[in-house]
C-alpha cells in the first residue's frame, strides 16, 4: 500500500520540478523541499521497519534463520535512506555541502569520544546491558549528527 503512494508522490514531485525547470530559484527551493520530504518519508519507513523488526525479535521465534532474516530486514531500508541522503548532498550547493561536512565533522569525533567513554565505564563498573548495549547506544550516533547539523546551520545563518 505504501509503495504506490510513494511512487505517486515521486511522480508528482518530478512533474513539479519539470514545471519549474526555467525558474532556477524556484527549482533550488523545490529540490530542497523534495529532498527534505524524501528524507523524512524514507527515514520514517526505515524507522517503522526497524521497530517492527525489534518487536518481532522480542517474540519467541525458535528458528535462528528466521531471527537472522528479521534482524536484517531494516538494513535495505536504511541503505535506501542513506542513498537518499547521499544523493541529496550531491545536489546541494557549496554552503549546504559545507554544513553537512561540518555536521559529520562534529558527529564523528563526538561518537568516538562517546563510545570510548562508554567502553571504559563498562570496564570500570560494568554498565547495565539493558541500558547501554548496542541495542540502544547506536541511536546516539544519528542524534550526534543532528546536533552537528544544528550547530553548523546556526553558524551560517
Amino acid at each position, binding site marked *: 500500500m505504501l509503495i504506490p503512494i510513494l511512487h505517486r508522490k515521486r511522480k508528482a514531485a518530478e512533474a513539479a520540478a519539470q514545471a519549474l525547470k526555467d525558474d532556477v530559484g524556484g527549482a533550488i527551493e523545490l529540490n530542497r523541499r523534495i529532498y527534505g520530504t524524501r528524507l523524512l518519508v524514507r527515514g520514517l519507513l526505515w524507522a517503522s521497519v526497524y521497530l517492527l523488526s525489534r518487536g518481532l525479535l522480542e517474540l519467541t521465534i525458535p528458528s535462528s534463520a528466521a531471527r537472522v532474516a528479521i534482524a536484517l530486514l531494516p538494513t535495505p531500508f536504511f541503505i535506501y535512506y542513506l542513498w537518499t541522503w547521499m544523493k541529496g548532498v550531491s545536489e546541494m550547493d*557549496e554552503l*549546504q555541502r559545507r554544513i553537512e561536512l561540518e555536521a559529520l565533522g562534529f558527529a564523528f569525533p563526538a561518537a568516538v569520544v562517546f563510545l570510548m567513554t562508554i567502553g571504559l565505564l563498562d570496564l570500570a563498573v560494568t554498565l547495565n546491558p539493558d541500558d547501554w548495549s548496542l541495542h540502544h547506544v547506536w541511536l546516539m550516533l544519528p542524534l550526534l549528527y543532528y546536533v552537528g547539523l544544528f550547530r553548523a546551520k546556526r*553558524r551560517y*545563518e
Partner: protein
Amino acid sequence: MKNRLKVLRAERDWSQQDLADKLSVSRQTINAIETEKYDPSLPLAMKMGRLFDLCVEKIFTLDDVQATEPRRHGAKT
C-alpha cells in the same frame, strides 16, 4: 575575507534571492557570503566576477593584505 557583494547587489537593485538565482545557489549562501560567515569557492567567486563584470579582487579582499603579500627578494626582515 571582506567583500563588496552587498553594495554591488544594491547598486543593481537585486534582492539576495535574485542574486542567488543568477548564480544557481541558495539565498542562504548569498546571505552567508555577504555577512562574511562563508568564503565562496573559486568557481563561485569567478561567476560573481563575471556577473558583475569585475575581476574577483574588486569584489573580494583579504582582511590583512600586507600580511600575505609576497616578500621581496632579498628584503630585510
